[in-house]
């Protein structure tokens, strides 16, 4: 995973609640056995006017001019501003892969669905929870100000506006460390392989029906 420290970037506003992972990346693209190449299909059903196919070159597809990411002023955005319960629905990590592949490094929302939140952290996409009233203010600022940028500082756990206003956010200390160092969870867990084996040995005695392979 690519380490994350701080990002200053253009903000794109996605003004709807309960954005589900079926919208972030529709199911036809889940047939891929790769981890990359999902960015061009991000929000496919909202972004294009036709129905996309996996592997398709999107250059000639008709764009939906009303969709926010198709507006020139948001081109190159790295921070997505969203509403409540972002990423609800399916556990597909492809949703996170599509957001990062498109170029997003941060999603700011009042709340996230649990599985999406965890998936994001494991892929260097920083999900930032801010109070609903702060998010509301940011929506108004972004829409009123072409080229509106924010700085998201992970070590300081703060979102900074161009005017210097600072909004602190919470993040699990362990996950923060993993993001800062780009750490791989599996490597961390395997340091405790002996403890896992000891646990298994104990459980084999206590609850042998859990180990029919014993």
């Amino acid at each position, binding site marked *: 995973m690519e380490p994350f420290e701080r990002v200053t970037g253009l903000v794109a506003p996605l003004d709807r609640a309960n954005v589900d992972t079926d919208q972030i990346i529709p199911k036809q693209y889940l047939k891929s056995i790769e981890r990359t190449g999902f960015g061009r299909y991000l929000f496919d059903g909202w972004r294009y006017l036709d129905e996309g196919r996996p592997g398709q070159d999107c250059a000639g597809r008709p764009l939906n001019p009303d969709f926010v990411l198709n507006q020139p002023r948001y081109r190159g955005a790295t921070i997505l501003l969203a509403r409540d319960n972002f990423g609800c629905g399916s556990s597909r990590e492809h949703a996170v892969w599509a957001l990062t592949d498109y170029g997003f490094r941060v999603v700011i929302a009042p709340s996230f669905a649990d599985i999406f939140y965890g998936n994001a952290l494991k892929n260097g996409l920083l999900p930032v929870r801010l109070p609903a009233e702060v998010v509301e203010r940011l929506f108004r600022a972004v829409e009123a100000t072409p080229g509106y940028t924010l700085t998201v500082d992970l070590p300081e756990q703060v979102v900074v506006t161009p005017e210097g206003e600072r909004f602190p956010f919470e993040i699990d200390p*362990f996950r923060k460390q993993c993001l800062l160092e780009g750490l791989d969870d599996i490597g961390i867990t395997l340091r405790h392989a002996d403890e896992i084996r000891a646990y298994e040995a104990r459980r084999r005695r206590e609850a042998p029906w859990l180990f029919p392979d014993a």
Partner: protein
Amino acid sequence: MGGRTLYDKIWDEHVVRAEPDGTTLLYIDRHLVHEVTSPQAFEGLRLAGRRPWRPQAILAVPDHNVPTTDRSRGIDDPVSRVQVETLDRNCREFGITEFAMDDPRQGIVHVIGPEQGFTLPGMTIVCGDSHTSTHGAFGALAFGIGTSEVEHVLATQCLLTRKSRNMRARFTGALPPGVYAKDLALALIGRIGTAGGTGCALEFAGEAVEGLSMEGRMTLCNMAIEAGARAGLVAVDETTIRYLEGRPLAPKGALWERAVEAWRGLVSDPDAVFDREVEIDVSALEPQVTWGTSPEMVVGVSGRVPDPADEPDPVRRGDMERALAYMGLEPGTPMAEIAVDRVFIGSCTNARIEDLRAAAAVVRGRRVARSVRQALVVPGSGLVKRQAEAEGLDRIFRAAGFEWREPGCSMCLAMNADRLGPGERCASTSNRNFEGRQGAGGRTHLVSPAMAAAAAVAGRFVDVRELLEAA
């Protein structure tokens, strides 16, 4: 120490190691794998030169991409075919048990786990699929994970995670005839919203839940994720134990006796404290139908499509307006006036034998309405299909004009050839009415199997109790 919830008890038994900050290495007893969320995890394993920690704890099955028509020709769509073949190859390479597409036990991953007794009380169970919550019906801690976590469980048989909060939904009163577990789930989501259970393990309790069969409890726990809760749970009781006895992978003999004794303790203590509680009286509940593009957009069948103008919150109002535009509905329309083009009876929510029996009871002696373009029944597994055929349910469905298919996820998410066309409206027993879920531009209304059957017969939504009374 105060009383513990069912979730607390299972959690405590699976902690391998806990850091002072709450980060926990949690042991995983069973891992279900399907073709969509696993290829990148196996590839990661290969790239790192790792092997599965405990291949015997894994059961794999292709379900999302499989055709539900004649399978002797294989899979037409080359992209789908590669994904299923990749699962076959990974299972061979890593020594993992797979019920391949031509295995009589093949089916939807959340149907076959319980059916085989792979799912047992007190276990931790994961799968790269959000509807893993289904298995919580057995007093197990079961939840969906992403592909990075699939790889992590493959490599270590553990997850690095944090404990959730405890939430309980109590359904009081007895469930009226013609009203099912699906209606309980939809009514709850209508009340608390699709984020109502976020951050929580959600235990279902109360008289109505105690009265449910295991299959009904699976439907309820399946929908926990649609309420935002990663895991749903139901306490173990005699119903749980009776269901499991004699299942192929359930313990036998003395080990069975010992397991049952342990399982009886898998209930929340009377003095356990929940962080959040919600109570719903179901004695007057009517069959539910969703009208929008989120499971929380739901009303009783006697209700009407709501008017966004009545919604004070601007974000919610905007969401309602977009949902109505997508669904092609006008505010105030009675739900019973909405005509359907297709009917789908299937999915990990509602494709078990009792679901098919409930639908067949409505269909028996009736015909699918002329205006309905297609009515599909997709059994949850090969064994469900065989059981239904032994009971003659397939003949009832076929005689009425339904198509009787091979098992898989099918039109729940349309990764195979079963899908809605743009603008088509479907009465569906699945779990998500998201935009495009059943096919680009398709319009989904979530209902119980009996309500879907009633919609097929009437050509529009109708209170199934009218048909049950007339029968």
